[in-house]
């Protein structure tokens, strides 16, 4: 998959938009490094804390500006619809963590400038635990968590 040239374009895009006053231009290069390749190491981490560190190199603060939508009780741990939206501006990435899975990081999304900071996806959950959403905005991390009860584990899925 030759995404290199297009990746360069993203950065220019992000930089350009940043110039128009959405702020945080300085962070763009840092993002470049972070987003250029598949975060193998972050996906290998066991706990959500370690995975967040490996992925972003910083810690998150809870924010009510991050809206996490996940069911109270998952109909089946193999397919749990999880979505996040945020009112935060200058969002550059959104990530999902399932705290009790063998590896906490489930999915991480790069949100280029011009893309709406909202993602819906379906995740596997091994057992009842917290789903954590991290939104990176202006180079800072904001999080929201919700417990999802799992009666049929997703490890079979």
């Amino acid at each position, binding site marked *: 998959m030759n995404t290199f040239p297009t990746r360069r374009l993203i950065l220019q895009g992000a930089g350009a938009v940043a110039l128009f006053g959405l702020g945080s231009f300085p962070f763009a290069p840092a993002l470049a490094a972070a987003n250029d390749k598949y975060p193998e190491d972050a996906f290998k981490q066991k706990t959500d804390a370690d995975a967040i560190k490996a992925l972003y190199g910083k810690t998150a603060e809870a924010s009510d500006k991050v809206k996490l939508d996940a069911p109270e009780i998952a109909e089946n741990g193999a397919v749990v619809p999880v979505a996040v939206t945020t009112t935060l501006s200058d969002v550059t990435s959104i990530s999902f963590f399932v705290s009790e899975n063998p590896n906490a990081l489930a999915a991480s999304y790069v949100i280029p400038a011009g893309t709406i900071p909202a*993602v819906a996806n379906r995740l596997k959950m091994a057992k009842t635990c917290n789903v954590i959403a991290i939104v990176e905005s202006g180079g800072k991390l904001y999080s929201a968590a919700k417990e999802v009860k799992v009666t049929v584990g997703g490890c079979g899925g």
Partner: protein
Amino acid sequence: MASTIRVRAINNGDTTEVQALIQHPMDSGFVKDAKGEIIPPHFIQQLTFEHNGKTVFLADWGPAVSKDPYVKFAFKGGAKGDELKISWVDNKGTSDSTTAKIA
């Protein structure tokens, strides 16, 4: 064989909403088969959406994304008839890509 990628991209004025469903086992490497042998991990690692050569969405996925993965997002711009290029690559280096017209 049909594409492994199903896409719906709908422009509603200033934004284009994109939904995609991909046919992939997303084996976690934690599941045993009927014979009790571990099914080796096999999952999509990266999924890219490009509009006019610009990446509008990039997913980094681990094995905890459900079988036949689904994702939904929206981006500013894009017009009816525009092409959206979607491609994925998995941990075995297999990949697939398709182009969808924005409706």
